[in-house]
């Protein structure tokens, strides 16, 4: 049986994709998981992988064309299988969906007037199943594919499970009638690693990753009152100035040992932040409306500026990683971000974020919290400053200003301050980081 290849939602917010390049020709043998094409999403260039086996029988969208998510872009089938109906049905849509896409969508014939909710799709009408055939209330096995184009079809249970387990529905291939995503599809991904998204390592949620704590009454009141004052995230800011002299010494000493030990100040700050977060789950948390999720693992988001805008890739389990590993990983993520090669799993799941504008000579700034996180650290420039020495004289030392934005619904002033105390102790005594 032929497998339809659809433009998939390869990022959580993707509505259309540009088919950059076909990696397979018509007639090529296809295995499950083969990369069929490269697709540019709103965030990155991603791979469109095969969901079935056989031969790539048809390429229905030209390279360079942008089509809405859900559009039929190709057909995989047996060598001699008759796919003319599939192709005929899709050709109109593909033609209509050629750039400019907005115009195509607007001019698509209102052929699916009967299927409300699928109005945004430009897919051609499919043959309507004969009605009144006597199978009542049965699963709509003849669900029009055009509906799939408009939205992800999943059973209510599958939607709930996907939410619970952090599975992105748009990336899942449904095994139910009409491609409906059902319970077993979510379970397969959550349990055995992804077959639907072969290239994507799925981070399994294991028990003990976090602790959900219901809101106390006082917490509820604080949350409500403060959000009324500054909303929707009632943020306050804590600024501290750290002494980086020892960090600078350590960095110099390390660099002298060889290039492989070179680390940046930013790496040291990331490492220190991750270590401090591990000691302060009260700020390594997510505000989830009716409860706060305190994470036992530290997934550190690092804001990266790219030509297209800001993106926050994640160093997972940052507290478990050494300075060298963090240094390598942060470089790698920044590079991928600039090349738009980050995958959704690279930039989702952070428990706390760090933003650094020090390299642009910003002394101090406030960063915007990335919800549902409850804090973000804004790193300013490292500057030589005259400070009062313990003996009462003045000396020139390297100083750094950090400002923590805190979501007051979850984090009170003293709680944020204690975290910054820990961070100060680590950054000012960087030997603790190798402890």
């Amino acid at each position: 049986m032929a497998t339809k290849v659809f433009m998939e939602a390869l990022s959580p917010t993707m509505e259309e994709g540009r088919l950059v390049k076909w990696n397979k020709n018509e007639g090529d043998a296809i295995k499950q998981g083969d990369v069929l094409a490269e697709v540019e999403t709103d965030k990155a260039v991603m791979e469109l992988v095969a969901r079935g086996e056989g031969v790539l029988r048809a390429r229905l969208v030209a390279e360079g064309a942008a089509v809405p998510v859900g559009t039929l872009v190709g057909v995989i089938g047996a060598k001699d299988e008759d796919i003319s109906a599939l192709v005929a049905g899709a050709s109109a849509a593909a033609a209509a969906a050629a750039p400019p896409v907005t115009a195509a969508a607007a001019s698509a014939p209102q052929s699916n007037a009967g299927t409300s909710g699928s109005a945004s799709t430009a897919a051609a009408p499919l043959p309507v199943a004969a009605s009144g055939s006597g199978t009542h209330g049965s699963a709509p096995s003849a669900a029009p594919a055009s509906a799939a184009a408009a939205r992800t079809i999943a059973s209510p249970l599958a939607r709930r499970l996907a939410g619970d387990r952090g599975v992105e529905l748009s990336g899942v291939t449904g095994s139910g009638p009409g491609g409906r995503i059902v319970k077993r599809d979510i379970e397969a991904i959550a349990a055995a690693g992804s077959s639907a998204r072969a290239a994507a390592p799925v981070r399994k949620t294991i028990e003990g990753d976090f602790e959900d704590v219901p809101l106390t009454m006082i917490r509820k009141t604080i949350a409500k009152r403060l959000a009324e004052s500054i909303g929707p995230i009632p943020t306050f800011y804590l600024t501290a100035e750290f002494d980086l002299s020892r960090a600078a010494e350590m960095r110099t000493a390390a660099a002298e040992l060889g290039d492989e030990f070179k680390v940046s100040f930013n790496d040291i700050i990331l490492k220190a932040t991750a270590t401090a977060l591990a000691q302060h789950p009260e700020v390594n948390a997510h505000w989830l409306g009716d409860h706060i999720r305190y994470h036992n693992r530290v997934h550190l988001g690092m804001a990266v500026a790219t030509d297209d805008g800001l993106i926050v890739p994640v160093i997972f389990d940052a507290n478990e990683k050494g300075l060298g590993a963090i240094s390598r990983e942060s470089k790698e993520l920044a590079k991928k971000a600039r090349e738009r090669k980050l995958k959704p799993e690279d930039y989702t799941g952070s428990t706390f974020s760090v933003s650094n504008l020090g390299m642009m000579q910003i002394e101090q700034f406030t960063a915007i919290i990335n919800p549902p996180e409850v804090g973000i650290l804004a790193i300013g420039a490292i500057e030589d400053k005259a400070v009062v020495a313990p003996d009462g004289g003045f000396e020139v030392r390297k100083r750094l200003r950090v400002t923590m934005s805190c979501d007051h619904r979850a984090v009170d002033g003293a709680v944020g301050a204690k975290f910054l105390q820990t961070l100060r102790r680590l950054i000012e005594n960087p030997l603790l980081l190798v402890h």
Partner: protein
Amino acid sequence: MPVITYRDALNQALREEMHNDDRVFLMGEEVGLYNGAYKVSKGLLEEFGEMRVVDTPITELGFAGVGVGAAMVGLRPVIEFMTWNFALLALDQVVNAAAKMLYMSGGQYPMPIVFRGPNGAALQLSAQHSQAWESWLAHIPGLKVVSPGTPYDAKGLLKSAIRDGNPVVFLEGEMLYNTKGEVPEEPYLIPLGKADLKREGNDCSIITSGKMVLVAMSAADQLAKEGIHVDVVDLRTIRPMDTEAIFASVRRTNRAVVLEEGWEVCGIGAQVVDYIQRDCFDDLDAPVIRVHQADVPMPYAKAIEKAAKPDVPKTIAAVKKVMYLEA
């Protein structure tokens, strides 16, 4: 524990309740001298006499009305219809008199009456005598509708129905009377409005009642051989319906098949599906599927009658469909 027939279980229930309460009497066609068309009332005339086991002419509307009048003045009649197919003329008494008496008399006239008899199809009795009326009757506020599928349930529920202060419609089955099951010797009651989980499995819920319980159990046996384990939720009482039992099962299995004897349109299954979609929307992995009689008058010809009835293969196919195992 003694194993007895559904017929004898009902007989025991009647006998026990007539002993317990001398206001209880049985009335209907052939219930006395002939011992009942299906022998449910065997021996009762001999034991309780003509005042309490009353043979009637073939006048369903008439003796249903006599029953209503008797209940109004303090007796507790059990009205037997030879089958519910013969009871259509009597529905004015059931629906307009019995179901509304307490309400329209401002509480002055109680209505502790049981209307009982076989419901639905037997074998080759053709279109007029093979009809399942539960959805008609359960539609009416003021009536309770009971539909037991086993001898144990039949006895416990009939005793409760007779003791209930409201009009109770009690649906038996011609094909059920000879079925056997364990029934304890000591007295017991089964409360109206309580379902029974007849079989437990986590893959799918089959929600059913009455005669169809046997179909569901047989389907469950066969499915188990294929490694598919289903819940069989026997509603036992159709009105009031034990929705919590339905929800508990569906929340565990995430899939449901509703199996009923009657027709599809406005059937009991439609009501069950409505309850499920309202309260278990986020628990469903598949649309609920109904299994029911074909939407035609019951055919007389044996093969076509078989094709029209809900049965084990249709139930198995429905279970596989909601499990996405078959197209």
